[in-house]
């Protein structure tokens, strides 16, 4: 069972994530958008959206740090376990609270503002459910696990993180995850579920983060692409007509 939950299922989700994105980019560039609803409503969005997004950037940064960097590295540069813990919990709380508050505002807005609600697709709703559960579980792990230490001390950098790196290295060790507290297990499972949904939702806009804007020239010139003036490539001369 553990092998399925923490090896097979995550790999299925990861594969869906990668292949799904390739497929979506290949076949649905037109649908690849943030689908902003700012035009409908701005008052709530102006507060909620930056809170959520900036908070989320912090959360993702924290996950990258916590999951990918081994404890031995931070030990090697002389960061004590306690110092790390304080920084991680402090930063995590700050980013987490911003994310949760932002998300609460955005969900409230999506449900109560008529035009926004009627522009919400089924896929959006499913995605929101996974996103909310993942974020709530993550917050629970931080607050209950690391601050209140309800289920006893758990150093995820010796458990979940090692499992995650072994998973990425294609030498997964399910036992590490099986020993983790339930909150961490559920958080990981829901997150992988979200990854599987990702390419089929509006979340794809994350991969369009326009960093190139900082370096490209202001005005873009483009030659008309004579090989593809219409929406289809011209037929090659030897292709059958009709």
């Amino acid at each position, binding site marked *: 069972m553990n092998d399925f939950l923490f090896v097979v299922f995550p790999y299925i989700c990861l594969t869906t994530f990668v292949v799904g994105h390739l497929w979506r980019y290949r076949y649905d560039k037109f649908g690849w958008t943030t689908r902003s609803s700012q035009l409908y409503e701005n008052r709530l969005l102006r507060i909620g959206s930056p809170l959520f997004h900036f908070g989320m950037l912090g959360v993702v940064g924290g996950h990258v740090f916590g999951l990918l960097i081994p404890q031995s590295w931070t030990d090697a540069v002389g960061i004590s376990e306690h110092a790390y813990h304080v920084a991680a919990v402090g930063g995590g709380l700050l980013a987490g609270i911003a994310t949760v508050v932002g998300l609460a505002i955005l969900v409230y807005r999506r449900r109560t503002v*008529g035009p926004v609600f009627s522009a919400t697709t089924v896929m959006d709703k499913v995605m929101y459910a996974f996103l909310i559960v993942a974020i709530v579980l993550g917050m629970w792990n931080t607050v209950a696990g690391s601050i209140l230490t309800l289920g006893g001390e758990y150093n995820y950098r010796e458990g979940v993180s090692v499992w995650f790196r072994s998973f990425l290295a294609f030498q997964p060790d399910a036992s590490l995850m099986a020993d983790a507290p339930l909150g961490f297990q559920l958080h990981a499972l829901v997150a992988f579920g979200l990854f599987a949904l990702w390419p089929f939702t509006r979340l794809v806009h994350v991969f369009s983060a326009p960093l190139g804007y900082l370096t490209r020239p202001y005005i873009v010139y483009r030659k008309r692409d004579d090989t593809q003036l219409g929406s289809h490539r011209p037929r090659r001369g030897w292709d059958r007509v009709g």
Partner: protein
Amino acid sequence: MKVMAQMAMVMNLDKCIGCHTCSVTCKQAWTNRSGTEYIWFNNVETRPGLGYPRTYEDQEKWKGGWEVNKRGRLKLKGGGRLKNLATIFSNPKLPSIGEYYEPWTYDYSTLTDAPAQEHTPVARPKSLISGKNMKIEWSANWDDDLGGSTETAHRDPMLAKIAEKVKFEFEQTFMFYLPRICEHCLNPSCAASCPSGAIYKREEDGIVLVDQDKCRGWRKCVSGCPYKKIYFNHRTGKAEKCTFCFPRIEVGLPTVCAETCVGRLRYIGLMLYDADKVLEAASTEDDHGLYEAQRDVFLDPFDPDVMREAEKAGIARDWIDAAQRSPIYALINTYKVALPLHPEYRTMPMVWYIPPLSPVVDVVQETGEDAEDKGNLFAAIDALRIPVEYLAELFTAGEVEPVDAVLKKLAAMRCYMRDINMGRDPDASIPAAVGMTEEEMYDMYRLLAIAKYEDRYVIPPTHAEQAHSLEELSTECSVSEYGGGQQDLFGEGSGVPTPIAVENFQMLQDRQTSDSLAGPENKEGRVNLLNWDGKGSPPGMFPPKGSDS
């Protein structure tokens, strides 16, 4: 020198009767889809008035276009690259739908399904955004013909700049129409604001387009464009803008708005310009210098050096010929009667306007004096400061002299031509008074008054060897090759693209049949007759056959 060709337009405002035919035909051709209800690539504003969207010209509020900073460098008024990215999650300068208007339809079924009753049934307006009943309070041309302007027109940002108080009393007012499309600027601030780099300027003809596959819906272009001519399609989540009807231009046809203009007031042609000088010209310190600076960017297509450089830059010989015959070049540079709209936005706009003499003529006529007498007209142009200053706020960043000069040329042309039409000897002193020869004046008259189709539209087609794959001809594949309809899984319109012409047909049909109020549910039984072209009968228009008893 880097020679580039730009497709440009000039509109002669004296001829505009405000019939909105251009807006309507453009809408039928391009924005006849759900999500684009409020989008007018072409709109006609009554000036003085608020414009569309409301007060879009107030750049202190909307922060569109460029400005010169303290070090004399050109920067986006909305903020630099970092600030632009930092505000990506919520665009602080995005006009709300209320600044445009909430699109609506009527609940026609209450009329068609009404039982016999004492009172006439009423079709209530329903919002196309929320689907709820709504009160119609604004639209794209709510203040048409100065309607309600005693209430609203004092908020016109251009009037606010004129010190004297303009009275909106019937006897003292003036008005004219201002048709607007995208300016297809030489220095487009929408493109500069786009984080994804989806907005580009075509190298061949300078048309500014949005790559629908690259647009990610960041909405920065909407606030970046000072003319507010980029719109956000709220269904597809992508930016859309006037395309200068590029599929038509490519085969040598004028844009739909120009083709259908009943006043024949639009001119289309090529301008050659020096791309290396654009930035410098846009950085001109004094707002008043921008009109001249932009004229300096244009190149003389008759200059042998320019012709040689143009050929080196890969501009075909027939395009250079077209640039020489261009009515745009004649109106902007030879006769100098066309002026840019809001040069102070520093985007180097390429749709120019011949300011209207009619507010002046109207006033002279009302006094009972001869409105075609040179002395009367010249005196009136000098005396009627308010209309002239207002025009200057629109076309020359408030500098009165160039507008004055244009109006005097137009006045002189009226007077000079009247003598000829009345069979009297032409008076050479009239053109001389505005620095023109008799021949020039007559040529200008021909171009402005009686130019034929091929004189108004000098559009060199894209080269014939490529023509088979152009959008409008589209001999490449039959319509049936394209799968029917859209795949709505990821939101409206997602899936493989269809060519523009087919898409219109497809979407027209979809819309005829599926025009539910806000969402795509409940497709049956609702027909949008506005979009019905009279051919065939869209499903749902008549009750199914055989069901009647």
